[in-house]
């Protein structure tokens, strides 16, 4: 069995190298880096996804995954990590003799990631793995290096951090907050204070309420009971609009307001100016987006590689328009140098007076950012 770890920075051709190794002859299972790339796209229940991949004879040991028991759940509603676990389970039930994984394991938490790597290390199948957090080829693996190409997307996070204008983020106070979905209670009587110039990491199981908290803070949802205030002033974003939070989504494609950056910026400017929120000038945006790797504001966003789009999604937290930044899995797909630079830039956000909430499975990234931990679960939010 051949196990190959493809190592190299972003834009060095790792994905192409991986795909070339797999070929296009239908003999290899593929787990890609982008949203839903773990799924076949041919099923609307977990049970059907497994049924599609089930081979006539099972060739490998089963990769156990709790999610496999959730037969009627829709695969598109699973978290990224759950989708990857489901895909590994499907591979283990299939008759493919090889698997290629392009950074997909980065969506797993520490325990599941270790389990997945252990499974890949001992299985009777070929493995080709590209992963930004596998820096040394594990024992028994060979390593294939790739080098950065000349037309890679340059990144200047240090310059971005240096250009951040200081501001004083408001303190957030949540008092007696209740929130439930029709089938489930999420928060019961939550009291929480979030200090300005502080960075918080949200942790909790899937379904615990991390995304729900983000939605409550930007105004998609409203609490059934309780109050949220900014520096003591009542804050009702569902009624008055979001005034405080710049959100960078896990899938960057979910946040574009236009087909080009220029269109995106113009629409946001138009929307936010009505609330008295001033955005940086177009020149400042152009400079910021160049530092994030875009050659021009007229780039068609969706025609850029995924890694580049992910970086451009950081435009909003770092443009300084909003005092609090929310980053959902910001490091997915980013190489080590980028993760280190991003950690420094996020730390600088805190130092310049902004507040930050981030969600990540990347403990190494989190360790580089001085932060406090908010654990969400059991109806509560506790600072640890």
């Amino acid at each position, binding site marked *: 069995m051949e196990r190959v770890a493809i190592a190299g920075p972003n834009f060095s051709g790792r994905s192409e190298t991986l795909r070339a190794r797999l070929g296009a002859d239908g003999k290899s299972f593929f787990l890609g880096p982008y949203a839903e790339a773990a799924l076949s796209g041919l099923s609307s229940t977990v049970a059907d996804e497994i049924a599609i991949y089930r081979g006539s004879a099972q060739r490998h040991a089963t990769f156990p995954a709790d999610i496999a028991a959730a037969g009627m759940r829709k695969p598109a509603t699973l978290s990224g990590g759950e989708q990857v676990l489901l895909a590994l389970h499907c591979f283990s039930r299939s008759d493919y003799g090889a698997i290629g994984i392009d950074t997909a394991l980065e969506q797993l938490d520490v325990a599941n990631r270790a389990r997945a790597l252990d499974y890949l290390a001992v299985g009777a199948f070929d493995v080709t793995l590209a992963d930004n957090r596998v820096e040394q080829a594990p024992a028994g693996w060979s390593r294939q290096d790739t080098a950065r190409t000349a037309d890679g997307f340059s990144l200047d996070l240090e310059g971005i951090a240096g250009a951040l204008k200081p501001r004083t983020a408001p303190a957030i106070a949540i008092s007696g907050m209740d929130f439930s979905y029709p089938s489930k209670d999420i928060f019961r009587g939550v009291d929480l204070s979030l200090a300005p110039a502080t960075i918080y990491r949200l942790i909790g199981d899937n379904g615990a309420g991390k995304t729900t908290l983000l939605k409550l803070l930007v105004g998609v949802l409203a609490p059934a009971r309780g109050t949220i205030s900014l520096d003591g002033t009542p804050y009702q974003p569902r009624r008055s609009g979001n005034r405080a939070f710049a959100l960078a989504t896990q899938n960057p494609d979910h946040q574009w307001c236009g*087909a080009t950056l220029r269109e995106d910026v113009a629409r946001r400017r138009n929307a936010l100016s009505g609330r008295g929120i001033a955005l940086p000038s177009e020149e400042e945006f152009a400079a910021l987006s160049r530092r994030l790797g875009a050659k021009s504001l007229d780039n068609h966003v969706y025609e850029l590689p995924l890694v580049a789009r992910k970086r451009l999604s950081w435009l909003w937290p770092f443009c300084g328009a909003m005092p609090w930044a929310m980053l959902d899995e910001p490091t997915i797909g980013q190489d080590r140098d980028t993760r280190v630079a991003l950690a420094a830039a996020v730390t600088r956000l805190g130092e310049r007076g902004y507040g930050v909430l981030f969600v990540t499975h990347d403990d190494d990234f989190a360790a580089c950012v001085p932060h406090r931990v908010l654990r969400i679960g059991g109806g509560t939010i506790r600072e640890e």
Partner: protein
Amino acid sequence: MLTTPRLIVIALCAALNVSLGTVVYLIKLPIYLDSIGTILCALLLAPDRIVGFVCATLAGLISVALIGLLVNPFYPWFALTMVAIAAVSAFLTAGGAPVFRARPMPVVPFAIRVVLYGIVTGIMAAVVSAPVVAYLFGGVTGSGSAFIVALFLKAGQQVLSAALLSGLAADPVDKTLQVLFAALLYRATPVDFIKLVRGQ
């Protein structure tokens, strides 16, 4: 004819019809937005009109069946309406594809085409739907149409012509909006995807 990229396009456009149609139906908007995928399918496959018609028809019929099963059981009765929309989209609206994608946007030619194609699509939809509305629904499909139909019936029109006139009053507006949305989505679609679908 049905290459893998085209199967994806048909499914994508059908899914768009179902998703938008369902959302609009559930929040009771006075518009439909359930044929944007059909129109878009024809635009994506322009200039091949036969392929565009076949794929747009398949997208339309699959969405009609799924909406019927999942949300609104009366929807499949309008299957022929969807075929008519696919025909107009493939043989007329798709002719506007180059204008819809031109950069910078030629506003006046764009607008003229959207309005013209929308009106023709709306007229065809109203004509084909009228017998269904008249017979299955007694001329009344909801609050929007109810009072227009009542007006024509009170004036002595028979139910089929009242349903037709009611449809002619509403459908061109709704379909113009849908052609506009489809044209803007087509305009925003990455060129790589269009090349993939057209086999270029």
